[in-house]
């Protein structure tokens, strides 16, 4: 059954590439504006030969990882505080709710002024995007732990700490993990915004440079890289969450 699923995914990708090829080769669009898969492959090889493909990947993954770790740790911690403590809920929820609709790209100019054009501003932009998503998921998950679980643990005489770690956290874990999964995707989404300025390496920077030199083939390499990385990360998170919150699997 699993082999059949893999075959379906592979077939879907092959069809997508063939459609892309057909459109690019049809002559309706200039090949300079819509390159063929072969041209994109050659551009990827060129970037590899120039030593840029993996150095960009390394730079971007490093920034995304640092931003994710900072944002996720803060998100889970603050989510625990706002969901379980009235004082923090009253103090932080209004301001965090106001921040949530502000997109990461709008934060970039502020980040540059506060943290400069080095990696600090990039970590800030990525962790900002991750933090808000993880905070909301954690807060929501902790707030919606079924009351019956709490009553049952208390009637059995569980102390507060035990109740927190063995009842509340496991009940909220599926929400937290799904928040982390969304946060990981957002880390990549905000990466490109973060690398728009002050970067001299990374996938976002290379996309921008390719645009400046009208290199659509190189732009497509960056887009494909982002797509593959995002999908791989999502798959990894899904597999991990199956083990971490196995009690929630249906």
């Amino acid at each position, binding site marked *: 059954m699993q082999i059949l699923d893999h075959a379906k995914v592979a077939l879907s990708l092959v069809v997508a590439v063939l459609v892309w090829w057909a459109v690019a080769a049809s002559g309706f669009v*200039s090949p*300079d*504006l819509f390159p063929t898969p072969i041209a994109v492959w050659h551009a990827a090889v*060129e970037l590899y030969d*120039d030593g840029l493909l993996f150095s960009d990947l390394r730079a971007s993954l490093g920034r995304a990882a640092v931003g994710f770790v900072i944002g996720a740790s803060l998100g889970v911690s603050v989510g625990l505080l706002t969901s379980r403590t009235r004082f923090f809920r009253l103090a932080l929820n209004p301001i965090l709710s106001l921040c949530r609709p502000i997109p990461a790209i709008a934060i970039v*100019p502020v980040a*540059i*002024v506060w943290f*400069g*054009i*080095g990696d600090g501003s990039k970590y800030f932009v990525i962790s900002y995007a991750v933090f808000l998503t993880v905070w909301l998921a954690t807060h929501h998950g902790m707030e919606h732990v079924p009351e019956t679980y709490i009553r049952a643990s208390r009637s059995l005489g569980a102390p507060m700490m035990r109740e927190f770690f063995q009842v509340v956290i496991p009940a909220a874990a599926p929400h937290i993990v799904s928040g982390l999964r969304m946060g990981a995707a957002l880390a990549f989404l905000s990466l490109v915004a973060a690398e*728009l*300025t*002050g*970067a*001299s390496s990374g996938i976002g*920077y290379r996309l*921008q*440079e390719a*645009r*400046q*030199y*009208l*290199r659509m083939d190189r732009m497509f390499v960056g887009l494909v890289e982002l797509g593959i990385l995002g999908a791989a990360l999502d798959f990894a998170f899904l597999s991990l969450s199956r083990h971490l919150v196995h009690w929630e699997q249906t």
Partner: protein
Amino acid sequence: MSRFFSVLVALALLPFAAVAQSAKPLTLAVQPSTDVPQILMAIDRKLWDAEKVEVKVVTFSTGREALEALLGGQADFAVLTEYPATIGILRGQKFSVLADMARYQGLRATASKKWMNLASLKDLNGKKVGTTLGTNVEYVTSVLLREGGAKAEVVNAAPADTVPALVRGDIQASVMFPNLYAQARKLLGDDYQEIKTKSYVSHALLVGSSATLESRKAEVEGFLKALLVADKAVAADAAAAQGIVLAALKGVMTPEVLKDLWLDYDYRLVLKDDLPALMSQEATWILERGAVKAPAEAASVKTLRGAIADGFLSRLSPGAVSLAK
């Protein structure tokens, strides 16, 4: 269901309807800036109407975006500096240079005394210099470093971020776009330092798509004729032209800053040999960096001269063109 089919039929007929329209306006993609007073004058005084040419002006935030609109078939004309035009020609794109509208010779390196002493360009050696990679200011940076015999770490910064980066000390010097000099001077105060380049002049070019230049010759001539009238008006009354530019910039520049910038501009529609020569130097530099792959002859003066359609300007203003054939 019948409504659905009506919509489908309408959509299918849309391209034919577009072709059927006889007088499609010429679309000009341009960034309103100090580079284009002739265009702003033509808009303000409705000079294209006088030539019976319908022009639709679409504004963009950079010349490169204007070029992208032209390459995507959304514009007939675009105004941009010679650097992105050179890239487009190296990439074999289908457009030609119609006129060199303005030349600016005030590009400079700026620095803060807080982080370094900029007495000569040699002082840039070993420093962190911020500029916007992939634009003509990156090329100017290379020119300035060559002039000073200096080797610096060149850091990428978006145009709006170069001044804050200089103030914060993320970079010690910067080669930024001219519209940012006043802001840098204001924020750095007594710490502001600058050195102008002696060997680079930026050119604001009017380019036209090959399809438009071939199929709408009379309209292109009318379009250019109006610009030549505007050119004369700008030369005759700089104060009025500055007023029009200030109005178009909607308060982002003060009259004093514009007057100061104006001194380094040479506004006149011309086509001279210095243009393909500079574009050839830039093309060679771009190819050496490997950002664009093309054979060496693509960067020759002859090839770049071939991308200049001087026929229109030669007919309308013969004295403005002095290009080797």
